[in-house]
């Protein structure tokens, strides 16, 4: 063997011995260099396979997520549109509520503070009015003409004559009665009058322009424009809409109070009297 080949053999043998030693060296984790070398060779292959698998899995995962996200987006868009519609409606209600609060706040701070509770003591059979009642409060209690009469929160009528211990109340159903009302939804106003007929709880609202949207069941409240009734009080609901005139509607309204069961009522001073500083408001007779 030539010296050169022997030198090469020497080098190869030394390397082989080193590899042999390395294969036996055990690390603290119990692994040997041989197992680590095997892992070093295999790990990239395994890593590549696992990476590819993870990549494919990730793509599928993203696809599924995207599909889910699209459905989620559509659902959220629908919910957002509905929420926006509800929000718009809520804002309208809020404005309406503000208007009503303003109206009621005015009433509470002025009219309702001077409210008087009265009992219905008679129903006149003879007299100038078809629909009227007598209550047991009069000028001695501060009650005077145009005092508003409420029955369980709904307008029943107004005082037309006050005596010392009693007062006569003209109900909304009487043809001589008139009350300024407002359509709660459409906000248009008009004068509601009693029909005086035999049909119970029926009043009429005339001359409502045909461009107004009115439906049965719509609510009418006091507008306060007549200077008597505080605005915002419940008056009645639309029973029927009739097109007797080519330009206007005639609306039959069912009043909210029940004349047959009138017993205890609440008397409020008229708005005009309160605004004008007339705290007494008593008079003998105005109609």
């Amino acid at each position, binding site marked *: *063997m030539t*010296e050169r080949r*022997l030198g090469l*053999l*020497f080098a190869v*043998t*030394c390397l*082989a*011995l*080193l590899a*042999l*030693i*390395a294969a*036996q*060296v055990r*690390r603290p984790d119990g692994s040997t*260099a041989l197992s680590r070398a095997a892992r070093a060779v295999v790990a990239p292959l395994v890593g590549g396979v696992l990476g590819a698998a993870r990549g494919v899995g990730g793509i599928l995962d993203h696809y599924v997520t995207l599909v889910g996200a699209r459905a989620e987006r559509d659902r959220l868009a629908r919910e957002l549109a509905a929420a926006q519609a509800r929000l718009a409606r809520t804002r309208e209600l809020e404005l309406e509520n503000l208007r009503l609060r303003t109206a009621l706040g005015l009433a509470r701070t002025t009219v309702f503070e001077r409210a008087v509770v009265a009992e219905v003591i008679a129903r006149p059979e003879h007299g100038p009015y078809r629909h009227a009642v007598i209550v047991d409060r009069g000028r001695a209690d501060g009650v005077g003409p145009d005092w508003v009469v409420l029955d369980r929160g709904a307008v029943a009528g107004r005082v037309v004559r006050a005596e010392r211990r009693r007062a006569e109340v003209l109900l909304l159903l009487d043809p001589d009665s008139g009350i300024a009302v407002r359509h709660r939804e459409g906000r248009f106003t008009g004068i509601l009058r009693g029909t005086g007929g035999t049909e119970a709880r029926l009043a009429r609202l005339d001359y409502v322009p045909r461009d107004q949207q009115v439906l049965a069941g719509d609510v009418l409240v006091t507008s306060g424009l007549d200077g008597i009734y505080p605005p915002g009080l419940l008056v009645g609901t639309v029973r029927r809409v009739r097109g007797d005139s080519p330009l206007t509607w005639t609306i039959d309204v069912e009043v909210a109070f029940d004349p047959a069961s009138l017993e205890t009522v609440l008397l409020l001073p008229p708005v005009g009297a309160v605004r004008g500083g007339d705290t007494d408001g008593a008079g003998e007779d105005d109609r």
Partner: protein
Amino acid sequence: MRGRDVVALVALGFVLEVLAGLWPVAGRLFDPLLAIAVLAALPGRTGTAFAVALVTGLLADGWSSRWIGEQALAHLLIAYPLALLGRRVDLLVPLPALLAFLVATPASWAIGLAVGRLFDAPAGAGVGPLTWAAAAAVNGLFGMLLWHVLRRRDRLAPA
């Protein structure tokens, strides 16, 4: 050095190695197989030095080494360069031979430490310079004894 001499020396070295292992202190200091590998390298015959070093190293590994191949590597790294050196320098005279035997054991231990460091293996019990010197002296004396015997029998001849 004839082939039969080499075989006999290797066999003798293995027997002594086993016997020295029965006594811990002797087993720690005495390394007859390494001395025989060095002795085989002194004439400058690289082939013989390579073979003897590999065999003695593997025998030492099989007997007492922590890793198979560690002593073989040490014996090779010592004997083969020594044989190369012996081709140019006469190592068969007393002083170079003595130096070779004295240096061989510390060199073998150093190679063992280096291998351990290379593979980040936990270090064994530390030994001081006195131990190193004692081992070098013991193996040097043993090597020179063998050298003397072979020299007297005229079995050592340069390559």
